[in-house]
């Protein structure tokens, strides 16, 4: 299976391991990630204003690339996924916006929002299947109590993201179970870590992250997994020292390709 | 004042339970509206077959108005919803045929809205009169 892959700025710099493990795991699961040519940064957050066009063009380009290859578009970073998915949704539903975008793009074919946008997790669930992953696990993460941290970007706004129940998501927990570990369900798993406001107001962001890690610990979690580099940064920097790892790293470990990846 | 003596011919279909009673109330309160308006009583606005409206235009009517109960108040629960959909289609088709939109109207008049009935008829008659005679569908063979 081949999919188009949008890594995003952070995965090429501060979160190289998120990217590297994603590649290795995909390989192990028989998925080939085809990186989009000349991708540009998604912009980090989706601008919900309908009259804001320019900063959504990079996403449209990525979506169009995937469309030209007739592949689904996959990303690992929660922020990239959120921006791509929301942009795609706007292209589908807001015709005024879509026609403006298509004018800007000035290419022969218009883009209509028909690319399927998957987060890597959704790819694992919907395209690979958690059962298939379970079969490929060589190194079950037995005895580990893992708290999944969704944050906001994967789930909300639910009307667009449609990944899972925004208040009671299961996708991360199902993956954790498939890898042989025990998921820890805690209430703060879908609350915001403080996001980019960590630059403007670090004290505030640290308060948010602390509450999340405390809540996870209080339910007996050994570690937190996340899909987002900024979440990981906030939780690690401001949290209660509970380890925070990328889910791809965990996946690599369970699939037995972690060292392989590190040596690559 | 109108210069010529032109009087439009207007057919009004009124449902028995709301609009016909509303017309009666307009009468009780002596609220004037043009005599050009002739009312035909139907049990429910949904009894109004589009054919009746075409027939009226064919026979020289200048305007046709259908009055029913307000949405949600239909004596038969849902009849006026059928009317609303049917008339939306019919009116747009008539528009396409050149029967101006102002010549057809669907209005909700309750049994308590005598004043609304009179005002609606006044307004409708005025709009239709402004358009002049309707020749588009008239079948000259039917003229005496």
């Amino acid at each position, binding site marked *: 299976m081949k999919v188009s892959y949008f890594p995003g700025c952070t995965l090429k710099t501060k979160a190289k391991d998120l990217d590297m493990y994603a590649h290795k795991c995909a390989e192990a699961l028989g998925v080939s990630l085809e990186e989009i040519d000349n991708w540009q940064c998604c912009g980090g957050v989706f601008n*919900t204003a309908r009259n*804001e066009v320019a900063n959504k063009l990079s996403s449209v380009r990525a979506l169009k690339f995937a469309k030209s290859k007739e592949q689904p578009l996959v990303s690992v970073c929660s*922020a990239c996924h959120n921006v791509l998915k929301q942009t795609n949704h706007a292209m589908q539903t807001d015709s005024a916006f879509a026609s403006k975008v298509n004018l800007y793009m000035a290419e022969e074919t218009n883009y209509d929002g028909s690319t399927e946008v998957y987060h890597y997790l959704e790819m694992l669930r919907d395209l690979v299947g958690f059962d298939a992953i379970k079969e490929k696990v060589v190194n079950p993460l037995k005895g580990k109590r893992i708290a999944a941290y969704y944050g906001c970007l994967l789930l*909300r706004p639910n009307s667009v993201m449609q990944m899972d129940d925004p*208040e009671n998501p299961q996708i991360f927990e199902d993956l954790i179970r498939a890898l042989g570990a025990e998921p820890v369900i805690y209430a703060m798993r879908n*609350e915001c870590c403080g*996001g980019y406001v960590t*630059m403007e107001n670090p004290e505030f962001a640290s308060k948010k992250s602390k509450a999340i890690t405390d809540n996870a610990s209080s339910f007996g979690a050994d570690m937190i997994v996340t899909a*987002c580099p*900024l979440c990981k940064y906030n939780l690690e920097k401001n949290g209660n020292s509970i380890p925070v790892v990328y889910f791809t790293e965990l996946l690599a470990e369970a699939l037995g390709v972690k060292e392989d990846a590190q040596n690559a | 004042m109108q210069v010529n003596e032109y009087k439009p011919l207007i057919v009004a279909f009124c449902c028995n339970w709301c609009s016909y009673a509303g017309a009666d109330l307009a009468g009780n309160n002596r609220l004037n509206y043009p005599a050009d308006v002739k009312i035909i009583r139907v049990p429910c606005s949904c009894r109004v077959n589009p054919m009746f409206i075409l027939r009226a235009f064919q026979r020289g009517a200048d305007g046709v108005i259908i009055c029913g109960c307000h949405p949600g108040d239909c004596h038969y629960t849902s009849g006026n919803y059928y009317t609303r959909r049917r008339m939306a289609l019919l009116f747009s088709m008539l528009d396409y045929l050149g029967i101006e939109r102002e010549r057809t109207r669907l209005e909700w008049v309750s049994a308590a809205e005598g004043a609304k009935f009179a005002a609606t008829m006044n307004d409708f008659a005025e709009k239709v009169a402004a358009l002049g005679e309707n020749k588009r569908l008239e079948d000259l063979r039917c003229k005496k």
Partner: protein
Amino acid sequence: MHKDNTKLTEEIIRASGVNPKKCMKCGKCSATCPAYDEMEYHPHQFVYMVESGDIEPLMNSKSLYMCLSCFACIDRCPRGVEPAKLVEAVRLSVIRQQGKNHMTADDVPAKLSEDLPQQAIVSAFRKYTK
């Protein structure tokens, strides 16, 4: 009464796609907002103030830059009002004005820490500047 802001209000409503009249004043947006304490005007006030055309105080408020765009208010609002989109629209109407960027490139070095991901800087720029 505040001065006539009809045009601005309409523009904000149009750009955001939000109909503040749908609000039933339950306050769930403000109950759910993680940035509540950092805000001078809270999400439910945003909706009310846009509804009543009282936009200027919002434009001058630091609340604009505290919204995390976590969309919790959007998902949990029982009436589908989407307060975060209003915040975004008001913020844009400010930073689109000349010289009203909330952050400049010169501000960045002081805010950097060694392992701060790019994503944070990109997002902050997207949110704070034009």
